[in-house]
């Protein structure tokens, strides 16, 4: 770990990407900001552009139309960053594993794009906000071990 990776692991800025999810996971991600769970106490906040993001919160089983846009976001994001695949659909396509229009899961698409991107899988349908915060925490701890 060096001082750069230590710095990134504090106060993560989150950017939310929806690749075709049913919105259950998206609501739980936004719920993390609300008074009961309050991710702002660990410094997390939602930003409006991938260029400012430390963590990409990705939900959804990656529909065909979303894939090229997601790849553009991966290109645009400021290095280093981690991808948090929130929800069962993002981790493994879940109930949509045999749907014709879903080409995920998220880690397959990021691996094809760039093998070095770290993906944290947070399963659940939807995962509770507590689980999302725990997953984020685990991902950031893992990021601390990386040399940047």
């Amino acid at each position, binding site marked *: 770990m060096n001082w750069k990776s230590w710095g990134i692991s504090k106060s993560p800025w989150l950017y939310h990407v929806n690749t075709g999810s049913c919105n259950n996971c998206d609501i739980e991600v936004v719920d993390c900001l609300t008074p009961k769970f309050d991710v702002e106490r660990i410094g997390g906040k939602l930003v409006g552009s991938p260029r400012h993001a430390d963590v990409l919160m990705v939900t959804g089983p990656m529909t*065909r139309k979303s894939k090229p846009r997601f790849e553009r976001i991966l290109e645009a994001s400021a290095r280093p960053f981690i991808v948090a695949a929130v929800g069962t659909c993002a981790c493994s396509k879940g109930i949509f594993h045999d749907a014709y*229009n879903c080409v995920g899961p998220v880690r397959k698409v990021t691996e094809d794009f760039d093998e070095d991107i770290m993906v944290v899988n947070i399963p659940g349908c939807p995962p509770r906000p507590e689980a999302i915060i725990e997953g984020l925490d685990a991902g950031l701890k893992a990021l601390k071990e990386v040399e940047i």
Partner: protein
Amino acid sequence: MNASSFKEELSGRFGWKVGKTEKSSGRLYVNPEPEIFEDMVEFVFKEHGGRLATISCVDEEDLFRLLYHFSLDDRGLMVTIKLPVKKDGNPSTKSIANEIPGAEWIEREIREMFGVDFEGHPAKKRLLKADSVGDEDFPFRKDFDVENLEVD
């Protein structure tokens, strides 16, 4: 029963051309002669204040059947008008989107998913289908090969 009384009104206006009907509580299915289809739609939508709930398309082996579901809310009756569309060549029928704006998106979706053309539709373009699925690929047809669809 309100399904019976509405069937009487339809027969009163269209006679034998109303065709075969099936009814149950709150539901009436009508198979009219195709030539009176537009007049029947006008009868239900304009004269009786029916609300277009949606249009379903069923892929039966030798033809497509379009089901126009109209809801008569004040009577609690769902009237479904069935229209067969031949499959061979270029399956097509006349659009109702110019009279009923709510049908515009519904017809666009049926066109791209089943391949039924709607003549006179104001905006024939894709609604949901991904660009990587071709213009001649119709995912909701029974014979669509899901397993071998390419991923790019």
